[in-house]
């Protein structure tokens, strides 16, 4: 049993928090974990990614080989496409539809979403709307984690447990809104399913 995940987004969007929660859950379940992340210059509003590898067997490389990722999970639609060549042909992509526009040549969002829709197994989530519903637009990363939860090889109760650990020091309100964000993402993803190729559908909260 193994799973290779590329987490994508823009510096400051909380990719490392997603990675922390999944990696901690995996360790709890006795899996091996490697997680390569980006610090330093790119964190200033640049494209960032994290390679997260979970496995029962020994993991050699900290980087996922191109063509081996099972999942690209992105908090941003442009960034979702940046790592497509890491995805195996039957891999899936779960992307937010909320653009983070901080460059002058940011493409037309519909064009981006249409490109994502061409990937046989995709799910597009309106993380912005769901995060607001959860009480804070800063919880988009947890919406996306929730949307991916059912497809991860770690148990959902371990994910929520480490969401609590992660946000504990920020107080109860913040823990609650992040848990709610996670649950909303989960619900939307559960209502959708990955039918390969022609039948690909999107979540209700998405589209």
């Amino acid at each position, binding site marked *: 049993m193994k799973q290779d995940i590329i987490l994508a987004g*823009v*510096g400051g969007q909380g990719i490392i928090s997603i*990675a922390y929660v999944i*990696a*901690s859950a995996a*360790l709890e379940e006795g899996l*091996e*974990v*490697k*997680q*390569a*992340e*980006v*610090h*330093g*210059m*790119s*964190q*200033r*509003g*640049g*494209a960032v990614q994290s390679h997260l590898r979970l496995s029962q067997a020994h*993991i*050699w*490389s*900290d*980087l*996922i*080989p*191109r*063509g*081996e990722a099972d999942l690209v999970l992105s908090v941003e639609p*442009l*960034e979702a*496409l*940046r790592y*497509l*060549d*890491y*995805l*195996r*042909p039957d*891999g899936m992509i779960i992307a937010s539809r909320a653009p983070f526009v*901080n*460059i*002058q*040549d*940011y*493409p037309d969002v519909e064009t981006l979403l249409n*490109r994502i829709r061409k*990937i046989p197994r995709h799910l597009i989530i309106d993380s912005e709307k769901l995060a607001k519903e959860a009480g804070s637009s800063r919880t988009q990363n947890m919406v996306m984690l929730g949307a991916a939860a059912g497809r991860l090889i770690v148990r959902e109760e371990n994910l929520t447990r480490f969401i609590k650990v992660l946000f504990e020091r920020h107080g109860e309100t913040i823990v609650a809104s992040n848990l709610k964000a996670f649950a909303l993402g989960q619900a939307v993803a559960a209502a959708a399913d990955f039918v390969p190729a022609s039948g690909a559908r999107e979540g209700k909260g998405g589209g």
Partner: protein
Amino acid sequence: MKPEILLGDEAVALGAIQAGLSAGYSYPGTPASEIMEYLIKAATKTKAFVASWSVNEKVAYEEALGVSFAGKRALVSMKHVGLNVAADPFMNSALTNAHGGLVVVPADDPGMHSSQNEQDSRFYADFANIPCFEPSNHQEAYEMTRQAFDVSEKFGVPVMIRLVTRLSHSRSTVRPREPRGQNELKHGASQDWTLLPVNARRRFRAVLDNQAAMVRLSEESEFNSLRLNDKDRSLGVIASGIAFNYVQENLRDLENPPSVLKVCTYPLPGKLIRGLVEHVDNVLVVEEGYPLIERSLRGLFGIAGKTVKGKLSGDIPLTGELSPETVRPALGLKPLESLDLGGFKLAARPPQLCVGCPHADTFQALNKALKEYHQGNVFSDIGCYTLGAYPPYQAVQTCVCMGASVSMAKGGAEAGIHPSIAVIGDSTFGHSGLTPLLEAAAADTNMTVFILDNGTVAMTGGQPSYASGERLLRMIEGLGVVKEHIRVIEPLPKNLDKNAQVIKEEIDHHGLSVIVAVRECLEEAKKRRRGG
């Protein structure tokens, strides 16, 4: 003890603490910063040892050397180019008979994720004739650091742990062992530590005489391993450090795996290398960084009757960071099948200044003032403000090394550039800007120096700055800059015209001016509001 998920940097820090560390020093720099962050957190909690940010890497190294002189264990960490700054104490400390273990940890940045070059620190270890460990994973980073202190105390030399970004900033499981205590205070012997020629010659001889023993240690190290394939002798791979993982990752796709030698210690384990080379027809060397092993193997004339492949032969890319896929062709493997964009163009998203960053306002005022001059140049330095090179500002034309803005502006001015402007942050100024400013003040060079005082080392995550606030102003005056030409501005949108006016006045002043732009980094302000 319980396993923990740690960054490679943190695994080194934990290894050092549990090896009986008495003090750690560093200057912030990606990808090494998290070593000291971890040490500081632990030291704050236990109060058992010293951990502190230094004003620059040279100072950090010398502080660590003082601890070693006192018989106690010290660690000094920095990004790879930081070792250039500390090269003077580093090279000389190889001769000082360290008797408290001294471990130096440079973190290299192959691929230049956050750096201006991709120099390979293993060459420094070779240059100084000291042992070097190159971990391939987190557990090794932990174990090697513990062992490095013993090796240092055994041979009386500093020992290097060479990290690379991909290990520094990757998290994985570490299983710690029982910690041990610190050394007692024990003063160094002056004949070992006073590098007058008479002592230095003797000490150099002693270090050279130890080389054979260091090689033996390397040959017996549990971190190296040789696996020979007796059925197929066509290919043998030598893989070092993290590159070993990229080879291993691909082996399952090979029906007939090559013989593999894993090398993670230096000086090179000659016996093991001979064992592999004699067994096979062709040798492939895979190493992260410059081709150190490959060059030693080839020498000038190569190995008679065998081919040596690697970076120099073009089988492995000579620049950039390795990955599982970059080593596949050299192993005779095709790329894995994957999805791709099929011609769909993606806009790049380079890093940029935070929205509302004080530097943005400084650059706007500077650009506005400079419109009236034609031949000027802005020499920049290392920090968030280097991002002023990108649109929409395009306000700076150089970035070379810490402190170079001030010295280059002086050289530029002396070559006839006007206005000749330096832009440097408060922490970088404290690191390496004081000495060139002292010189410019003495010569009253016709140049303008901007010191951007945001009160922190922002790019690396907000470490404390020594040259900030009132102290910074007193320092500038103390260096001999004329008081009327030390101007303070507050970089805010509403002050744009006023600030541009101040800049013009100082450019028109024939002589040295220093403009201090004071406004707190937004990230720091945020942190402060959150109460931590």
